[in-house]
């Protein structure tokens, strides 16, 4: 089975390299990730209706630690794009013309298909009512947006791509390595982990697929096992909220000596 491809973008801002979150564009990969308990968040909307944010589609956006978990456990690999790749590729006249022609063909094909379907629909409707009405004009309807970039497929694999892959993986590791231990600990217990900002935590934990189960736990930010004192007002707020929505508030830390994760679940006692 082929690897799941996680797309990240590498960009250089004022001399500092940074890596974007992971995006999945293939529906097949999204299905496989869901079976692995990685659900992500659908973020794709329509270019012309960017304010519509209810029925979102591909790409699926992943947390940094999810990306790191996928690649360190060998479920997938990174596909690194540099933010300058598209403008650089488009500098070449032949690529530009090729992209333009491809695009025009695609649109024409889509229009032809729509005309055909509409005509068939209309004819079947008129036949049903026993009429032989006039053929309607062609309404401009839906335009299919391809999942793949028309430009990127023209970029050639070059040595810089290998360097970019290395750089992106090491940046991801630097940024999310300290969160990977907690994330892997939760994944080992077959929990589905999703971002927890909605409930004031770091993660929300589901005992299985979020479409089948309610979440059970809100995981608070990781704290230092030896140094960070408990903030009782934060615990009070977190645990009250968690109990009100039938969850528990989970405090956690990594024991530096053993690298073990230790957790405490807090809930309101129901009195006082």
């Amino acid at each position, binding site marked *: 089975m082929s690897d799941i491809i996680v797309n990240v973008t590498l960009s250089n801002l004022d001399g500092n390299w940074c890596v974007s979150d992971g995006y999945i564009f293939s529906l097949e990969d999204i299905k496989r990730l869901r079976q692995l308990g990685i659900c992500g968040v659908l973020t794709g909307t329509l270019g012309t209706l960017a304010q519509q944010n209810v029925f979102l589609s591909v790409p699926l956006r992943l947390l940094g630690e999810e990306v790191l978990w996928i690649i360190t456990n060998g479920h997938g690999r990174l596909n690194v794009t540099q933010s300058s790749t598209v403008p650089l590729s488009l500098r070449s006249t032949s690529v530009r013309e090729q992209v333009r022609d491809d695009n025009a063909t695609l649109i024409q094909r889509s229009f032809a298909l729509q005309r055909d379907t509409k005509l068939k629909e209309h004819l079947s409707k008129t036949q049903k009512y026993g009429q032989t009405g006039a053929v309607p004009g062609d309404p401009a309807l839906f335009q299919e947006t391809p999942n793949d970039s028309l430009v990127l497929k023209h970029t050639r694999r070059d040595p810089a791509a290998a360097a970019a892959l290395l750089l992106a993986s090491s940046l991801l590791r630097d940024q999310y390595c300290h969160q990977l231990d907690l994330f892997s600990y939760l994944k080992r217990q077959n929990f589905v982990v999703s971002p927890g900002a909605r409930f004031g935590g770091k993660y929300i934990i589901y005992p299985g697929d979020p479409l089948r189960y309610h979440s059970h736990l809100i995981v608070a930010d990781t704290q230092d096992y030896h140094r960070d004192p408990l903030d009782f007002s934060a615990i009070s707020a977190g645990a009250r909220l968690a109990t009100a929505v039938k969850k528990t508030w989970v405090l956690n830390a990594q024991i530096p000596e053993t690298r073990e994760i230790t957790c405490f679940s807090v809930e*309101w006692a129901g009195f006082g």
Partner: protein
Amino acid sequence: METKDRAEYIVQLVRNNLLYYQLWTNVCVNAEQLNWRGQIFQVITGRPSHKLSNDAAAEGDTKLECVLPVEMCDYKNSDLTLECLDQVFTKLCNKDCKRLTLAIVNNDGTVMFYFVYKGIHKPKRN
């Protein structure tokens, strides 16, 4: 007030709250103390006046609860780290104690009670 007196005051306040306000029985301050970075922690055990969660229904009668009184610190940081909480579980609680009840004392005398379970614990049934 000195640390020792302050700790004693907090423990007595929680004990009185359990005994006279929550109407718990068999309330008893355990003699064992945990000295942690200059702070003294002590555990109170007691039997609640009614069952505290529906999960306990399967186990029958109300059980002895372990209560850890702590002070809500507004102006200075508390010293209760997760490491300290681990110590409280191992040194001050019974082996079969499945949860600790954290009694947070506010500076106006109100006490809030929170269950703390070691490890990941599912929410209680209501």
